[in-house]
């Protein structure tokens, strides 16, 4: 069957389970020390540099990168375990998360040696925050409509235009952004975009305007470039060929456990308010959620096993994100229905549950938009089925 997608039953090896124990004990210790409150949701304290430094000391940032650049040459599956354990504990990973997941790997592949030696070790120490500059006011899912222009000047490029919905930009040390270096061609409308490393702290002509989300959180920004100078050395990869780079990295971005565990705490609190003997419909609802979550996680582990084996499971990664984000988007609504007849004895449990539920409900609409919309993902899956070109 050529249309069937491949999800081998990969198991996490023992080294992962040993690492999991270490991470859990670290998490427990840090929660006890008050580094963060796992039940506190929807606050901006996710940018925790002290925590990032400690995680760096543990050696859990840049886990798969070469030692030469501060990395640890461990496996994707080990990274998977660290990511999921931090995620379910609501650990404040924002400082290093994007850099660790995708910016670092992009630099490893496309940046020059000086930049790699300078920046990658700082990421690994938890000192360096990254953002991604893709969307523009007139270019979201249609990435290749980007207009922000890079004009060649002596020794580099001048950037003019703006990026939008740029997470972390107000805190980030760097962005990895795509700018237009040439017009698209008739044959290839994806041609003409080039990837750059943007130094957010030391570049004149960049301003960052906050955009507050409906949840009250400040993640998004508008980033405006006015004759901002990028040296030639900050060009990443092929001039006019960013589209090739962007698509091959999507599997990393889309298949991770963060795609269905962002609001997992609401499930934990659901079990708490249901108590040991749930009513029949609550038991069924909970059982289905656990079965669905287990399946998603097995799919996600499988994709990460393929990444470890050097494959590029872009279609499989898209399936994980499509199913995972839709599942998580429905999660708070199902949880709300499941808990309808729960009468917890402990009022504190009810309060914690309702806080998690409100947060998850508020977060839900963005899950199927960020990092590739449902519609875009289904287009990629359809292409994988041979129904259309990529």
């Amino acid at each position: 069957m050529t249309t069937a997608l491949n999800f081998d039953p990969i198991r996490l090896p023992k080294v992962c389970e040993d690492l999991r124990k270490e991470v859990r004990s670290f998490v427990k210790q840090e929660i006890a020390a008050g580094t963060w409150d796992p039940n506190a949701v929807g606050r901006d304290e996710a940018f925790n540099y002290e925590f990032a430094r400690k995680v760096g000391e543990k050696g859990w940032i840049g886990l798969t990168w070469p030692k030469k650049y501060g990395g640890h040459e461990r496996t994707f599956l080990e990274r998977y375990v660290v990511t999921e354990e931090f995620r379910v504990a609501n650990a404040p990973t924002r400082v290093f998360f994007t850099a660790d997941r995708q910016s670092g790997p992009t630099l490893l592949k496309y940046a020059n040696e000086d930049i790699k030696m300078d920046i990658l070790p700082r990421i690994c120490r938890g000192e360096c925050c990254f953002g991604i500059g893709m969307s523009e006011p007139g270019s979201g899912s249609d990435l290749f409509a980007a207009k922000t222009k890079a004009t060649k000047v002596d020794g580099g490029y001048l950037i003019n235009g703006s990026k939008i919905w740029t997470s972390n930009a107000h805190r980030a040390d760097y962005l990895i952004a795509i700018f237009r270096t040439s017009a698209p061609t008739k044959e290839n409308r994806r041609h003409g975009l080039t990837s750059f490393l943007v130094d957010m702290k030391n570049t004149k002509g960049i301003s960052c305007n906050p955009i507050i989300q409906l949840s009250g959180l400040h993640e998004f920004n508008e980033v405006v470039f006015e004759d901002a100078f990028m040296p030639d050395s900050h060009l990443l990869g092929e001039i006019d060929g960013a589209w090739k780079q962007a698509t091959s990295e999507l599997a990393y971005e889309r298949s991770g456990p963060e795609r269905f565990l962002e609001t997992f705490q609401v499930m934990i609190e659901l079990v708490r308010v249901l108590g040991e003997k749930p009513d029949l419909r609550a038991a069924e609802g909970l059982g289905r959620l656990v079965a669905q979550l287990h399946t998603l996680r097995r799919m996600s582990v499988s994709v990460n096993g393929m990444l470890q084996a050097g494959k590029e499971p872009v279609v499989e990664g898209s399936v994980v994100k499509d199913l995972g984000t839709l599942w998580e988007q429905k999660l708070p609504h199902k949880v709300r229905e499941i808990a309808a007849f729960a009468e917890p004895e402990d009022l504190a449990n009810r309060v914690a549950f309702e806080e998690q539920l409100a947060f998850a409900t508020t977060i839900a609409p963005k899950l199927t938009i960020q990092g590739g919309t449902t519609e875009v993902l289904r287009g990629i899956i359809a292409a994988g089925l041979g129904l259309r070109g990529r």
Partner: protein
Amino acid sequence: MSESDNIVAETAARIFADLADPQTVNAAKDAAWKAPLWQALEENGLTLAWVPDDLGGAGAAIADGFEVILAAGRYAAPVPIAETLLAGWLLSTAKLASPAGMMVPLPMRPRDTFTMKADGSISGRARGVPFARDAAHFAVLAEGKNGAVVALVAAASARLSEMRGIAGDTIYEVALENARPVGSAAATGIGKEALMVMGATVRSLATAGALEAILALSVKYSGERVAFEKTISKFQAVQHNLARLAGESAAATTAATSAADAIANAQSLAAPGIYLEAAAARIRSAEAATEGAAIAHQVHGAIGYTKEHILHRYTRALLTWRDDFGNESQWAVDLGNRVAAAGADELWPLVASR
């Protein structure tokens, strides 16, 4: 498991391709195709793959038997290959030899029970049993005075009544009244839960195979059917439906092959995590069957709703299998109760343990 890298899987795939072609089976005026198919499966040792050599079987690995079932699902092959494999496995757990021919394990629903009296006779009933008229024997898991008992019962000892099923083949209620088994022995290390775990995993694998098949059929059809002057595969609405079907198929395959892999590598069906794996496989694959069958029909339009087209062979089987060895609601209630009893702080460790 998705790559047929072993001889058993390849043999099964070849036999089904040669002798269970859905087009031929669907167009057949009688059941003459059935005998050569069964004969080939039997001669190649596939029907008793899970029975050790000394008990009359082929002594294949558990993983190999699961491969046979996945392959059978890809053809929605209407022969009791899964049932006979399970019956042979059940008899083997009690060191009972398996006879040749078609068998069906009983019960097939968790709430049906059989009991063995002190005189060794067995009574009880099982609903929703396929192939009851074809089977020569039933392998029955019964409650005895000193615990679970496995018995081999000749089909002639049973009273069959027809039930209305979803698939084209009749399903039956099988009643035993003081039936004398051909042989019986105490079950060792298994009970009804273990039978349901094996049965649910088997049905989940067949479901995964059939979903792969209807995905392939639907993709192919969408590239052939022209409407509004283009193939319907060019319409985004159709593409998105097919992408959803691919997702459901992938979820079912992942859950089912994960459960099969867990069982094949476990010392016992009572090992930690096996229950979650089997429950999740059953629940998620049944949900995928419901969604997937509907999407495949939607893509095919009216032609897919005809007797002439082979789609119904798969979709009706998919919907029927949901009810065997515990339906998804029953498994979900049980899984939910276990998760709740273990408590909130055990939820993540359970999920992460797989």
